[in-house]
């Protein structure tokens, strides 16, 4: 049986990096400039 993967512990300064490297980003369909 596979052990659950443990998340790596990260130093606080790496949090911003993680946010930028997030694999999914959600955007509002109403949130682009140039539409009615």
């Amino acid at each position, binding site marked *: 049986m596979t052990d*659950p993967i443990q998340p*790596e512990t990260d130093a606080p300064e790496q949090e911003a990096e993680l946010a930028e490297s*997030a*694999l*999914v980003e959600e*955007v509002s369909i109403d949130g682009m400039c140039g539409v009615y």
Partner: protein
Amino acid sequence: MPTTPTAAPAGGMLEEAWALDESVALRPEPFGALAYHFGTRKLSFLKTPELVDVVRLLATSTSVEHALRDAGVPESHWPAYVGALRGLATGGMIRPRGQRGQA
């Protein structure tokens, strides 16, 4: 009215079977894909081609882990990918096909 999306389970997602919700359209792009849920009007960006492959493979994979392997995602990246799938699950973009095994 769209039904409330299923909250992602705390662990063990690797062994679960999931699939893209039928109301979701997946549109490939150079960087990955756009996923749009016609019911909730949520728009998500899948930012790597590998993640797009994983999402596409979910429906025919017995588990998330199988989809990750088939898509060639290195194991060291699995936490990031499972995190991404959890986010998609919370937004209702993917739905469980039925629990298989325990965490």
